[in-house]
């Protein structure tokens, strides 16, 4: 019974921390520029 209580406590604490990070955490901003473009080949070479 003591083990079960501890497990439930650990799970609930993990849930609270994960929720806080989800709401308050700062994720990276996805890249806004760049990408693939045509490779310029030197046609005079």
């Amino acid at each position, binding site marked *: 019974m003591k083990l079960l209580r501890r497990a439930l406590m650990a799970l609930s604490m993990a849930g609270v921390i994960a929720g806080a990070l989800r709401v308050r955490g*700062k994720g*990276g*901003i996805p*890249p806004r520029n*760049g990408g*693939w*473009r045509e*490779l*310029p*080949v030197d046609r005079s070479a």
Partner: protein
Amino acid sequence: MTDLIRIIGVGAVGARVARIVLAAEQSVEVEVDDVRADLVTSLVPSLGARAAAVRQHLGTRHDDDGRARVLVLAQPRPHVALATAALEAGVTVVSVCDDLDDVRDLMALDRVARRNSASLVVGAAMSPGLSGLIARHLAGRVDRLDEIHVAVHGTGGPECAMQHHRALGGTALGWHDRSWMERPAGSGRELAWFPEPLGAKDCYRAEMADPVLLPRAFPEVGRVIARMSATRRDRLTARLPMLTPPHPEGGLGGLRVEARGERNGERVALVAGVAERTAIAAAQVAGVFALAAIQGELPEGLVIPGDAQLPNELLLDRLTAFGLSLREFVGTDAHTSW
């Protein structure tokens, strides 16, 4: 005056090489041969009046009648016996082989080629082949080139698919800090971003020929690492016989070449590549080299795509004229709180 290009193997790559060289150069005639006579019979009429079938050049003896100037080897491995015979007859050889052992054997034919005033192009496909041409282009945009990282996605015809399977079950060779490094194929996962629409693919070390060829073309480079994309099933079954027969031709493939070096005192990483059916890209590279041989633009002896002696930009320009869309990745200004 016409020039004859003989093509051995008319699968997904060889048949396209025939079409490409015939379309690009009016003075070229083509002879094709394959162990699958039905393929030759069905292909030749579609190639037009400048194409013909031959049936005597499949063994280890190249019965050269003095007509062929270039022999394109696009059949399953090994290529070394036929290449040797052709070179001894003074015929330039363009091999699309990507099997590591066969590539090593072909590289050893440098002297034979020089002695007979012929050229031997080893690895005229997508990887190796286009990988070297792109790496040379990127090398011209840095002050000092240190590393080349190649990643490949997809396969061409059935033989290419079998080679992909073998490569994931073998031993991956890498040129690492100017010494050879062996790792189990299927290890060293890296997420590689290919040109759109391919996007990101998990790539792994594999028994590929680029780390053997590129250090010869780029002696200044300290690291050459090659990876290929693979699924979990590919890696799980790599050391078993192929469980399902390969498709006649794979879907959209891709190549990504990353060149790392120094420019203006700063470390830079330049990335370029293509997204194209593997067999089409391989055939275009082989066709470009076959035509360059006809034009007398290749040096005698061993020719590795990307070698500084080659007219690299001209070859890339011809590839784009064939319809290959070369792409480069331009950097992002990613702002992050991490």
